[in-house]
């Protein structure tokens, strides 16, 4: 279980998170939605300690992420994260990308790490791409590679940070498919997304973040289809409009 209580975060004088409370239960898929700059990605990177916080506490399976006494590297292997930019290590083949962390972090033998990597590449449908360099893969394949790399540490939680935002539209489907597969296998997931349709169909709960606070939280039906707060309604109206209409209305 991930328990986020009263988390505050600032970059210099800019306050990004103003006391966030959120609990993610085992096996749950929680989507974080909200406008750019609402703090969704920052919150996600606070959960695995990539970003320090100025107040509050984040507990992962009862262990405090930002406690200096916590072995953060050990804790991070429980929390897989996939970023918007695929970040596959460009000097390693797909198989080496996935095998690296099991070999150096969990000290598995080379053969075991490679077998594990192959298993996870197959899991995301890249079983035949083990020898390819990231530069030889499409954006969607690189993103699935990043998912396989995170899964190879056998995490209990997966965090997704706008993983489809940098992809060409025709490549979005294969990545979402992989995420649905993980969901069906019971993985606990926190997904930051702009894809309202994905949130509606896959999320157990949706949290709408607005100006560093959780503005509204509930099932997709509650938050997306029947939002009660005015900010949520405004955000969803904007998201639902076609980009062309936004251009037209701003020109007019």
């Amino acid at each position, binding site marked *: 279980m991930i328990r986020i209580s009263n988390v505050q975060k600032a970059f210099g004088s800019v306050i990004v998170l103003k006391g966030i409370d959120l609990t993610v239960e085992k096996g749950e898929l929680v989507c974080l939605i909200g406008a750019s700059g609402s703090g969704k990605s920052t919150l996600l990177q606070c959960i695995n300690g990539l970003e320090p916080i100025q107040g509050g506490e984040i507990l992962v399976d009862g262990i405090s992420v930002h406690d200096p006494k916590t072995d953060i590297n050990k804790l991070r292997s429980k929390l897989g994260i996939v*970023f918007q*930019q695929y*970040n596959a290590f460009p000097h390693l083949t797909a198989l080496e990308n996935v095998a690296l962390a099991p070999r150096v972090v*969990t000290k598995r033998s080379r053969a075991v790490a490679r077998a594990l990597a192959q298993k996870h590449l197959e899991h995301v449908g890249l079983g035949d791409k083990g020898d390819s360099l990231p530069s030889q893969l499409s954006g969607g394949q690189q993103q699935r590679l990043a998912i396989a790399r995170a899964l190879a*540490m056998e995490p209990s939680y997966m965090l997704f940070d706008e993983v489809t935002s940098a992809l060409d539209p025709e490549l979005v489907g294969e990545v979402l498919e992989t995420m649905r597969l993980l969901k069906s296998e019971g993985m606990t997931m926190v997904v930051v997304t702009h894809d309202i349709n994905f949130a509606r169909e896959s999320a157990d709960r949706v949290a709408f973040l607005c100006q560093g606070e959780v503005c509204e939280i509930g099932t997709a039906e509650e938050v997306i289809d029947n939002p009660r707060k005015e900010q949520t309604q405004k955000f969803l109206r904007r998201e639902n409009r076609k980009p062309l209409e936004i251009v037209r209305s701003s020109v007019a």
Partner: protein
Amino acid sequence: MQFQFANQGLAWSDAYFLAQGLLNTVRLAAAATLVGTLAGIVLGWLRTVSMTVRIATAPFIDILRSVPMIIQLILANSLLSILGFGTSPFWFGTVALGAWMSAVTAEVVRASLLSVPVQYRKSARSLGMNGYQELLYISMPLAFRTGLAPWIGLVLSLIKDSALAGVVGYIEYMRSTQILITRTHETWLLLMGAGLFYFLICYPVSRYSRHLERKVRV
């Protein structure tokens, strides 16, 4: 009785003298490259991680990079003699050239490490790697690709600068050439020969670097 210079013209035995000079040049350049590069890697890395080190080492880097090599050699020679290190000219040359090499390599290493995109480092850390593992498996291999070409430029520069080590009494290739020129006055031939052999030392280095660059390109 008629006075006569002994062996005024070039003789075959001079080839042996030159070969020794050439070997000395290679030895000095290799030693200074090794010492300077190892020190430069450590120094360059420290300069990326610690503000204190960066400020503390800035004068070292700036002075070594800006003062002509010949002055550094003479000063190093005098300083080491005053301090009582009565070592060989080879070590004087190695220390002076190695110090210069460490300063310029440190800057190449620092710039290369800083050029590694932060998202790769973040990804590595998010997989549970600690800072050293990230440095070893991600930052250093990627920085190596960026730094290789400029570093080879420094090695070539060092090989040529080693010709100045004659001023501290080290008989390297240039010095041995000058000695023969003084005796024989075969200036053209000997300098052409010296130029050719410097080229023969440097060219394989730059060829090999190009080959290596192609091999590790991402």
